[in-house]
């Protein structure tokens, strides 16, 4: 009974006009949540949290670097799940959602690489080294760009999405490599600080901004994904009746 309700709900949401309405309503709330979390997070990160014993204030870069890195990887996992559903069930909306994850994930990967580089210059003494962690993260950026390029190269968007979804699943292998790179090989990048299982090696007084920023970035990913998917849906369905109705309904 509950299962059936969920199933029907998903099928409803899967129809283009209802997804359009859903995303129009939900996305502003996610943006607002992101704004709130990031204002609190940045305030704590720059004003409240004490400097690090070794790295002084430069460690504050962590609060944008780490949430972005996590989201770059989590975004890829989300994209892979959507891609697998898209390939197996051929649901158009999941194809679109999977494809729209790529530019957002690429943006977070770029933030991660840029801020990491800026952090590395004063602390490690170098902008860039080809160690396993840094290299695998750069590979992630290229995979994201490859997915975007492949999708853009097709005129038939549904076919393009299916081909790119295969690339998504091929690239998935890079995610555990990034995660475990600091354990499997000797790297310049330090090991894991935050552990879900077991103790984190970060003082509790330094944790709140990390939590705020991480939640904020997750909300932002959702908001940007809904915005982009909605636009893609409009573009693909430009000749369809429901888009005309929206056009004639309001002057926006």
């Amino acid at each position: 009974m509950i299962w059936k309700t969920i199933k029907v709900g998903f099928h409803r949401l899967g129809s283009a006009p209802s997804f359009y309405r859903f995303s129009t309503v939900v996305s502003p709330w996610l943006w607002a949540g992101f704004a709130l979390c990031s204002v609190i997070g940045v305030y704590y990160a720059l004003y409240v949290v004490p400097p690090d014993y070794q790295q002084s204030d430069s460690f504050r870069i962590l609060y944008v670097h780490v949430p972005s890195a996590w989201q770059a990887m989590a975004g890829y996992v989300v994209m892979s799940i959507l891609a697998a559903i898209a390939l197996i069930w051929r649901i158009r909306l999941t194809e679109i959602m999977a494809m729209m994850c790529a530019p957002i994930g690429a943006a977070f990967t770029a933030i991660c690489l840029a801020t990491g580089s800026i952090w590395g210059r004063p602390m490690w003494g170098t902008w860039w080294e080809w160690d396993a962690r840094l290299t695998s993260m750069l590979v992630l950026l290229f995979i994201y760009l490859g997915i975007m390029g492949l999708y853009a190269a097709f005129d038939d968007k549904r076919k393009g999405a299916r081909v790119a979804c295969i690339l998504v699943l091929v690239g998935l292998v890079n995610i555990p490599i990034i995660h475990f790179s600091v354990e499997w090989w000797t790297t310049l990048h330090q090991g894991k600080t935050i552990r879900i299982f077991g103790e984190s090696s970060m003082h509790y007084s330094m944790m709140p901004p990390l939590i705020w920023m991480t939640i904020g970035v997750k909300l932002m990913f959702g908001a940007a994904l809904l915005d982009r998917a909605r636009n893609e849906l409009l573009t693909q369905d430009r000749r369809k009746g429901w888009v005309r109705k929206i056009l004639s309904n309001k002057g926006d």
Partner: protein
Amino acid sequence: MIPELEYAVYVWSSYGIFAVVVAWQILQPVLYRRRLMAELREEQALQSGEYDDPNP
């Protein structure tokens, strides 16, 4: 007001990059949507014969 940080240039430029990329994630869909809507309305006007040609 503005905290005095060591390595200030590095910290501020990192937060700056984050802000710029986030702003782009907000703006890109808005700008794209605006362009698309204008295009679609023009198309619709052309088809329905209500097109008001700016350069007759």
